[in-house]
């Protein structure tokens, strides 16, 4: 296996409650403004949870211009297709392809991979059957008989978890190696890692990786609340008064290329992919280990993959979802690897909510931006660091990274822990 292949980021795109571009998200984050606000998708005045990080005021045609497509995709697909399109445009890859001879174009497309991390579906996708249940008076034989008269014939296709993968391929003509990961929170992170491995292993020359999710759905929010995961107001990562997480919706995407390919075409280089580690704690669907076992092992694997030492890491983007058990165990895991003097730590979910399958990719694009700006953004909502999270250097003011290397941590259901290491542009030029 060729682990010396250097892989660089050449395009980024993002959308969430904090904005429609990476620049907008970054501006919101560094200005300390959270996009978490009152739930507006339905009248939540009687609801136990009344906040979310919703993307509002955006016409669907801004996201995906092709109105015909709107009938056969769902909201999460729209966000994913939008973010992937933005990253591809930003990379200049399709403009580069346009100048090629037809045979070269075939080869280019066959050697371009697509990797998606998908939320996998929401409860409300099944609500398309509610009018049919009324029609059928809840009886199955009538439900079957009236099916074709009441429900959109494209219902299944509209709700396929792999829609973004397929539509990004179709819209941009990419036909190479691919995957659609449906592993809840770590979906986006694993999609990127699979893409990078495909480049290292010679299965592709370039790839687009995207994570997308829209968990702002009444039943999803209620069920998250009932298992005790949601905060009533905002996300306070590692704070003594943290009370849970807040759901958001969004998508983020990157294009990656081998350094050789990127330099050959004169692409802008936004950062370098250095390594990845991922493990499950084997703890079940919701449970996590209190000792941070999975966090520590994932970080150790990422460091080994990147051939780096803990001291090389200049900043950490923590998962920091604001729940009691996740933040405390994450702090322990970080401490196990970095000892009593970890590099500056930040987290971004306070700014745009927890976007589940998209969260790892949103954090990644923010980390790349932070490295290029050489600033570790403040966590605006932290007041008092929870003693259980000591000595994590999380502050309500910005910090300076110790080096041009960032660690991005992502955790999820099924005991999943992922750690990603990325470097700023000068790393590449060394």
């Amino acid at each position, binding site marked *: 296996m060729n682990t010396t292949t250097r892989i660089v980021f050449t395009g980024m795109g993002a959308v969430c409650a904090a904005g429609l571009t990476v620049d907008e998200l970054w501006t919101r984050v560094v200005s300390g403004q959270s996009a978490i606000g009152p739930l507006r998708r339905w009248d939540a005045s009687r609801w136990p949870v009344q906040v979310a990080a919703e993307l509002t005021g955006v016409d669907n045609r801004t996201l995906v211009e092709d109105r015909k497509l709107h009938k056969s995709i769902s909201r999460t697909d729209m966000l994913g297709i939008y973010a992937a399109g933005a990253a591809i445009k930003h990379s200049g890859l399709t403009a580069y392809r346009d100048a090629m001879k037809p045979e070269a174009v075939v080869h280019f497309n066959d050697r371009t991979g697509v990797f998606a991390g998908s939320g996998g579906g929401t409860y409300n996708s099944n609500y398309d059957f509610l009018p049919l249940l009324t029609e059928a008076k809840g009886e199955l034989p009538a*439900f079957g008989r009236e099916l074709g008269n009441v429900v959109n014939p494209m219902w299944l296709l509209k709700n396929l978890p792999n829609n973004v993968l397929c539509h990004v391929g179709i819209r941009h003509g990419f036909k190479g190696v691919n995957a659609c990961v449906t592993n809840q929170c770590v979906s986006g992170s694993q999609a990127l890692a699979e893409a990078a491995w495909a480049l290292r292993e010679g299965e592709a020359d370039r790839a687009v990786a995207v994570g997308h999710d829209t968990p702002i759905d009444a039943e999803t929010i209620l069920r998250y609340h009932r298992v005790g995961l949601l905060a009533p107001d905002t996300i306070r990562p590692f704070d003594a008064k943290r009370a849970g997480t807040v759901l958001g919706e969004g998508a983020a995407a990157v294009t990656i290329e081998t350094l050789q390919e990127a330099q050959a075409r004169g692409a802008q280089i936004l950062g370098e992919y250095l390594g990845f580690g991922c493990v499950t704690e084997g703890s079940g669907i919701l449970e996590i280990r209190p000792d941070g076992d999975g966090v520590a092992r994932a970080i150790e694997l990422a460091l080994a993959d990147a051939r780096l030492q803990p001291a090389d890491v200049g900043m950490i983007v923590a998962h920091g979802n604001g729940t009691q058990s996740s933040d405390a165990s994450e702090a322990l895991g970080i401490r196990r690897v970095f000892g009593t003097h970890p590099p500056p730590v930040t987290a971004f979910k306070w700014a745009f909510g927890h976007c589940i399958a998209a969260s790892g990719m949103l954090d990644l694009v923010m980390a790349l931006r932070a490295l290029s700006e050489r600033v570790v953004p403040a966590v605006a909502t932290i007041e008092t660091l929870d003693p259980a999270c000591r000595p994590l250097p999380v502050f309500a003011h910005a910090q300076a990274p110790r080096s041009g290397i960032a660690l991005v941590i992502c955790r999820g259901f099924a005991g999943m822990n992922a750690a990603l290491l990325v470097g700023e542009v000068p790393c590449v030029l060394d």
Partner: protein
Amino acid sequence: MSAKRRVAITGLGMVTPLGHSAPATWEALVAGRSGAAPIRGFDASGFPVRIGAEVKDFEPTRHLNDRRLLKFCLPPHAFALAAAQEALADAGIRPTAATSARWGCAVGAGMLGIPFEELRDTHRNCFASGEFNPDGLLNEDFPTDPVAFCRSQSNAGLGLITRYFGIRGYATAVHTACASGGQALGTALRVLRRGLVDYVLAGGFDSMLNPIGLSGFCLLGALSTDNDTPQRASRPFDATRNGFLLGEGAGFLVLEDWEQARARGARIYAEFAGVGDSLSSYRITDSPPNGDGPIQAMQQAMADGGVTPETLDYVNAHGTSTQMNDRSECAALKVVLGPETARVAVSSTKSCMGHLISAAGAVEAAVCALAIRDGIAPVNANLETPDPECNVNIVRGQSRRMRIRAALSNSLGFGGSNSCLVFRHPDEPPAATPERRTSCS
């Protein structure tokens, strides 16, 4: 690039419409028995399609003595745990405290499945006015059992399996529609080659044989409507084919480092030698008529596995029995196999067990391992009127005894994800696998 790590298949498990174990399923496939019947699991009398290939008389407690765990299981999760348990027992090895971090898990999981009863609860509470009223969810009699939340997660199956068997290494769940099982197996092979783990429990599980799942496929018109002749309904490559037969089930394989498997004296069914993935990027609903997309995936899998058309003996086709898939797949096979098309045996075991959707690719990988072990290409049942466009060497009439040096398994998903896998007989010398093409220069 150094030589690729060799990967052995040492354990198999299946829960399918043909039986609750790999041996039972294999015996039925070799005999060409069909698992199709009128649907019994719910009242399908009003649906345009009233037949399916159900897993019959499956009692989870007979396989898994853990009632608490089973509470968290939807039907496909129970199939998965039972099949995984069989695969581990068959391999004669399981994760221990010392090895748990060296075990990985890769699964192809189905779409979010809401039991019909839960949708009825939502309807009763929220839809009285004919418009969805979210406040109805807050009613006291709307059930919000944490268990229902847990099992509806996209990686619920992964969480249950890794916990139950004590797996702590790389773990992932994938979904590329009908190619999910193949995608999961391909991921597992890569994870082993990368050295991330030394063992992977890999497989797929699905059940869409419920009112909502069946509705989805009925609406698309993808299923055979031969309600009066269920056992004839799935007839891949037959000129009169008219859609697929919806099945359900799970398939799991234990994959391990070849040398390690040899060192512990494990029985090796086959070498898992190659993977190729591509996107057709054609149309969301249609298969490319000329096979563009599937061609690249098959070619890459064969090159990766060190197999040529001359050394390939058997293809377990995706062969869904829809007009479009079978035509597209045959067009691709003819390009890939060239003059060897007339020799290489092809069959679709979906002719007997139906289409297991996200489980299909994993179950069919296990079928290839058994085909290699026993030297039998299982029959493509129900082929009576050959389609001139599907003029490949289909195993007709009865299963064919033949030495299988290498087998190819195709999974071609809705939306255009293609995952192809290559398996080799364990006695075949390791191929001098060519390096993958690395760049266009």
